């Protein structure tokens, strides 16, 4: 990883102070993980932004319909999923911190916690879908459900993708493939997982709460 040294004040420092200041002010110029995943994350964020704006402005033209059918959603399921994803994201933070401290078993443990909570998210979402499908609701029911089902399923598939990445990382971590000096794979998977969480933090209030 490349680093850039920022020196804030050179006119009022001694050589000893320079040395201390330099070590304290070194900041990485690249975010954690493989740089390629960050361009992928930016592309994903743009796609979700288009989805969010399309939902909001379609609702603007159909306020009564959106408000009526939003009431059919289970907001408790939405908040459970938000808490699960946030905690899963936190577990991934702990996994990254663990491998940086050379605690391989702790890293694997935290990754398993993250996966378990990702599983909770998928289960709750599947139960929601099952409830809707039993009522005969599908993409053609109305414009609200078209957005609700497509937007949440699009995100659902990102959770699945994130979990596949986390499973691969967990296996590699278990085999001892990562170390305090070489753990780019863990950081890369973690960054993707946090993106999946970040997007849900906007999706949940937009679809389940705002009216």
């Amino acid at each position: 990883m490349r680093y850039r040294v920022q020196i804030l004040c050179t006119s009022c420092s001694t050589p000893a102070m320079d040395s201390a200041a330099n070590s304290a002010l070194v900041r990485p110029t690249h975010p954690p993980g493989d740089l390629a995943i960050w361009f992928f994350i930016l592309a994903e964020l743009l796609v979700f932004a288009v989805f969010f704006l399309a939902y909001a402005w379609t609702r603007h033209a159909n306020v009564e319909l959106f408000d009526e059918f939003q009431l059919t959603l289970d907001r408790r399921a939405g908040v459970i999923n938000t808490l699960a994803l946030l905690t899963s994201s936190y577990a991934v933070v702990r996994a990254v911190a663990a491998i940086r401290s050379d605690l391989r078993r702790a890293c694997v443990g935290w990754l398993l916690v993250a996966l378990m909570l990702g599983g909770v998210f998928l289960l709750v979402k599947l139960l929601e879908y099952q409830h809707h499908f039993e009522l005969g609701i599908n993409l053609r029911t109305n414009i609200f459900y078209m957005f609700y089902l497509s937007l949440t399923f699009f995100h659902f598939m990102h959770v699945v993708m994130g979990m596949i990445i986390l499973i691969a990382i967990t296996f590699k971590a278990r085999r001892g493939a990562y170390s305090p000096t070489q753990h780019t794979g863990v950081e890369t998977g973690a960054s993707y997982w946090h993106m999946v969480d970040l997007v849900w933090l906007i999706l949940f209030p937009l679809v389940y709460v705002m009216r």
Partner: protein
Amino acid sequence: MHVRQTSNPLLKPCSWVWLLLLGLTLVTFSLGELGFDGRGTAAVVLGIAALKAQLVADHFMGLRAVAGFWRPLIFIYLVLVAVGIGLAF
């Protein structure tokens, strides 16, 4: 499941941020459950959502410690999305 504790000093702020995120989520949920609606509520809920997303980017993704355009880029993205959504409510 046994998970060992790590001693990384950067974890403490992340733990507080995680608790803050859970708390803000419950505030958003409560606003919905109590039947708050309208532009004012939408603005508050959107503000909370954008704040939560920025906290995740800063602390969980680690952008707070990264030099350059990455953190401002996410900030601008969140502002534009929030304003774009807010104008429709």
